């Protein structure tokens, strides 16, 4: 079976990852997955103000996800929305287990994720970019986080949905995965689906994450020591 854009069911969209795209930031990365583009910038660790947010034993990870107004067909109103607040939270939870936050008490690590172009899978693209940017900023980590969304159309499990597929799918399941420790740090799902299907979908997602992980490694290597 072929998909709407000619891919195989278990094939990712064309993937481009670039590290060090923003000079001003301590670390940054751009992830382009088909027509979805995410840019992440990391600042810090730096002193956290207001003081009441400081944690005495570990750093505070602040993730800000936003879609730029021209990222979709209809203009996105700038500023936080119900949806973006949720994504900020799940992104933070996806990244937190991979970072040695206890090394920088009372500080903040700022992660700003901007979606330049949206065509489904923005939160996973954002997580991919953020994890490369964190590594680029020299933040101590247990491993890189890779993320991808999976879904099911009719009887086929498909990897990395695009916008058209997302409208048709029975379920949409973004998964974030720390490859080295084999931990799943984000698992969301909307739609209606069997228990058996979930297991299959998870297997497919982890396969996609591994491919992304290899690309993330390559991007960091290119940035720091060339080919």
């Amino acid at each position, binding site marked *: 079976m072929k998909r709407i854009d000619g891919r195989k069911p278990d094939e990712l969209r064309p993937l481009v990852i670039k590290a060090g795209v923003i000079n001003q930031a*301590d*670390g940054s990365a751009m992830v382009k997955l088909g027509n979805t583009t995410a840019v992440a910038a990391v600042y*810090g*660790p*730096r*002193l956290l103000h207001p003081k009441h947010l400081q944690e005495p034993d570990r750093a505070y990870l602040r993730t800000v996800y936003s879609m730029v107004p021209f990222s979709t067909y209809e203009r996105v109103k700038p500023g936080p929305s119900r949806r973006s607040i949720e994504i900020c939270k799940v992104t933070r939870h996806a990244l937190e287990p991979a970072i*040695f936050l206890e*090394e*920088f*008490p*009372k*500080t903040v690590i700022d992660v700003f994720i901007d979606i330049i172009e949206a065509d489904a899978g923005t939160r996973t693209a954002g997580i991919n970019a953020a994890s490369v940017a964190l*590594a*680029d*900023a*020299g*933040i*101590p*980590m*247990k*491993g*890189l986080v890779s993320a991808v969304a999976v879904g099911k159309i009719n009887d086929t499990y498909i990897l990395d949905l695009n916008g058209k597929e997302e409208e048709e799918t029975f379920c949409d399941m973004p998964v974030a995965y*720390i*490859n*080295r420790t084999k931990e799943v740090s984000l698992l969301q799902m909307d739609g209606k689906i069997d228990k058996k299907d979930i297991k299959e979908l998870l297997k497919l997602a982890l396969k996609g994450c591994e491919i992304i992980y290899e690309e993330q*490694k390559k991007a*960091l*290597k290119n940035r*720091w*020591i060339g080919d």
Partner: protein
Amino acid sequence: MMVVMSELKKKNREFVIPGDEIIRSMDYIPGKNCFREGESIYAKRLGLVEITGRVVSVIPLSGVYIPRVGDMVIGRIEELQVNGWLVDINSPCIAYLPFSGVREYIDPVKVDPLKIYNVGDMIYAKVASMVGKVSVTLSMLDPRARKFKTGRILKISPVKIPRLIGKRGSMINLLKEKARCKISVGQNGLVWAEGEKIDVIVKVIKLIEKESHVEGLTDMIAELLEKEGS
């Protein structure tokens, strides 16, 4: 008896990213920027592997400055408090310079402490002590410590400072000699320089930061300085 196998996954000076397995062995100890999990040692930060004896560590390529006791740093006076000054040292930590840490005796009733160090002054100070990981106390009771009145201050990446100093100070001494200038290097990524050829020094320091991974950089810089000097 079981034979202990140590399996080297990454060579010395090889590039690693966080989570890369460096060595699989219980004979080695995780050093800086590394951690052990099970039988293996993994890289914690992005950088280059360095294995010296039985210690495995990673030389970072990016990141912020984390103070250590004994470091000389360049800081900017931010605020006057009851018993000292708050100093910005280009790091996530808050640095405090108490009145007891300066050479002059200060009685705040009789003398205005701002006459000694005003807000905005740049100082070269020693990290005297640290409480926990974030609160730093500075001291000016070191022969090298002083206030900068002239000259120029450059900001480079703190992880590139060892390269700017060179092996046993080879690079920094070369700069001082060839360009006939005064340089004070802060471990926190700030560098103070003064001299006739200040523009050349700025250019060279920026070059060292950019080309820090190149081998034989000291010779290259020596050549460049020779050319600029004529």
